């Protein structure tokens, strides 16, 4: 079962990227406090993303002719691993670099590629993905935002919600119904590029329980788009989204979201000289190592040209379980020693991760949806 998901190694030429990206990170994030760095891929800095693009670390997997670097998914793994484990603020370019640009490369027209991919590689065009709606969460096929083709262009009406970074983004690639009704399920859905500065678009940030506003609701009222807004085939949006999700679900962000907290806690127990948590440190270290190997194995399927949808779901479900366990067991360890001082920074980091952790198994497919995908891969549905 899932026989091709086996141990794989990062090639030396991709490992060779590590010193340069590490030096870049050291130079740019040293002054960011730990509880900000714990935001990981939710930490937003347009300036950092532009600098990263200038330094040549964006668009690693994209062809050189579009401003990319012509490398493979392993190269991206190395750079992303360094960024995430250090807690670099990568949110600004994250979605464009990971999903939007590969999507446009696979399904977009030559004009769409020229317009967007080089700017994404420079860290200058920021994208968000319009999936969820008030009535469509896990059941994405029920989206009701509609686009009508009216003499040379599209007119969009409807609403998206929980859209990560919509308020900072230049464009949204939205899953929209272009024909049929919700009864047609996946049929009749298409992906459209929406310029978020277009008249009729309203973006309202939503504040989360940590005080951050990283997602938003987006309203479309008679938003007029050119006929070049369609990505790929009309009515094929669902298939395109599924292919895209393999990129979203398999990456190291699904194992390293809490890495800053893990390291902060280890520093703490080292500083107080405590040995009673050795077994816990060992268990967490082993799980992180296994997840890293699983994530590299999944990346190897991308390298082989596959779209490892089921394998990516396996890595994401297990990875987010680990990320969510970390703040639980670390909180217990610290509070099991009520007379031991805990730094303000570690305390804030722990509580930030504790509070945001439920989102880890919501974004990019809930735990229950992922397990359903895995079960389908096992032939059970």
């Amino acid at each position: 079962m899932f026989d091709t998901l086996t141990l794989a190694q990062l090639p030396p030429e991709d490992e060779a990227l590590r010193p340069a990206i590490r030096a870049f990170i050291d130079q740019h994030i040293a002054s960011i406090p730990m509880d900000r760095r714990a935001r990981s891929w939710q930490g937003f800095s347009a300036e950092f993303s532009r600098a990263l693009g200038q330094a040549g670390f964006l668009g690693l997997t994209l062809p050189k002719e579009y401003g990319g670097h012509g490398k493979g998914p392993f190269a991206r793994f190395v750079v992303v691993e360094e960024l995430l484990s250090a807690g670099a603020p990568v949110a600004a370019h994250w979605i464009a670099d990971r999903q939007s640009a590969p999507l446009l490369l696979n399904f977009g027209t030559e004009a769409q590629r020229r317009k967007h991919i080089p700017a994404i590689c420079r860290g200058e065009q920021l994208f968000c993905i319009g999936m969820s709606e008030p009535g469509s969460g896990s059941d994405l096929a029920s989206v009701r935002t509609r686009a009508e083709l009216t003499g040379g262009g599209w007119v969009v009406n409807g609403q998206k919600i929980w859209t990560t970074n919509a308020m900072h983004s230049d464009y949204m690639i939205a899953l929209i119904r272009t024909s049929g009704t919700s009864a047609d399920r996946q049929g009749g859905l298409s992906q459209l590029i929406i310029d978020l500065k277009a008249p009729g678009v309203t973006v309202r940030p939503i504040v989360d329980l940590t005080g951050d506003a990283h997602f938003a609701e987006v309203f479309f009222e008679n938003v007029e788009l050119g006929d070049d807004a369609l990505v790929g085939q009309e009515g094929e949006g669902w298939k395109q989204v599924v292919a895209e999700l393999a990129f979203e679900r398999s990456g190291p962000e699904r194992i390293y979201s809490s890495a800053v907290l893990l390291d902060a806690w280890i520093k703490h127990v080292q500083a107080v000289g405590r040995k009673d948590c050795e077994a816990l440190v060992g268990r967490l270290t082993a799980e992180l190592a296994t997840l890293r190997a699983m994530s590299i194995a999944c990346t190897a399927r991308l390298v082989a040209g596959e779209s490892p949808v089921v394998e990516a779901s396996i890595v994401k479900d297990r990875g987010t379980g680990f990320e969510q366990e970390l703040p639980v067991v670390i909180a217990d360890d610290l509070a099991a020693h009520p007379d031991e001082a805990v730094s303000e920074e570690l305390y804030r980091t722990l509580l930030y991760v504790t509070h945001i952790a439920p989102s880890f198994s919501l974004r990019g497919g809930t735990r229950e949806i992922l397990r359903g995908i895995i079960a389908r891969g096992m032939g059970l549905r």
Partner: protein
Amino acid sequence: MDINELLEPFVRMLDAAAPPAVVRAIEHGGSAAALWDEIAQSGFLDALVAEEYGGAGLSLADIEPLIEALGARAVPLPVAETIVARALLASAGVAAPDGPIALVTSLAQPVPCGLVAQAVLFDRGDALVLCEMAQLSPEQTGVTNSLAARISGNPEGQTLPRPGTGLRPIAAVLRAALIAGAAARLCDVTTAYASERVQFGKPIGRQQSLQQMLAVMAEDMIACRIAAQLGASHGLEVPLAAAATAKITTSSAAPRIAATAHAVHGAIGISEEYDLQLLTRRLHEWRMADGSEGYWSRVLGQQRLATTAMSVDWIRQNVFA
């Protein structure tokens, strides 16, 4: 080399020579000699022996899928252990005995397949000792159908150099691969059973609750496979951190995998005549052999806490490199 060129003949040989009826007969006290002869004649026992000593010169990583195949079939002999022992003996210039060899990393707890091993390679701490199993007075544990043996005494015999981190990390990686193999088979048979067994008018595998359980089982199975491969990727000089990762991941998953397999099968799964128990009993035995997840977690935690590196760096340098 293409792994299938190696794996296919090995699997064919095992399927012919060690079907469940043979496993049961040996567990019930029957002779293992015929099965051992088949395995010995296949030539695989010298897979890790260097070519200059007449072996196949393969690496532990090369043969990890073979060890999984042994685990998946509940082979009632210490085949993986013998393969490792023969390589260590050959590189030390010590002649290997003909029969099955158990790896012994502690005299205090039962040794898997101890009742069917003829020789023992024991880690004395300063050197490895090769001795006859009879010297250690192997005794049954009293656990039904178990081939594990209680041993006692003081192993004496020819000595050979001890691998850098001792025998236990190697043995732990073998257990990890055996667990991974059994986990893969259990995933297959449990999924197949869930697709066939009809209750409430439909296969039980159509129930979402079972689908979710089986999906987690598959995740555990993949984690076991990849952790075992990670452990086996360093040859016979296994770094402690790599052995620990392999054994912690597989040993913690083993009871979960056994529990799900039994939960899905219902009552028939705990009957003696059904093959499930051949695998689930072994999962528990291998979990406890050569250090459970608790033992290895302390070992790994101690190493980790001794350095100031960031976790991801530390893992790259100590588990992967």
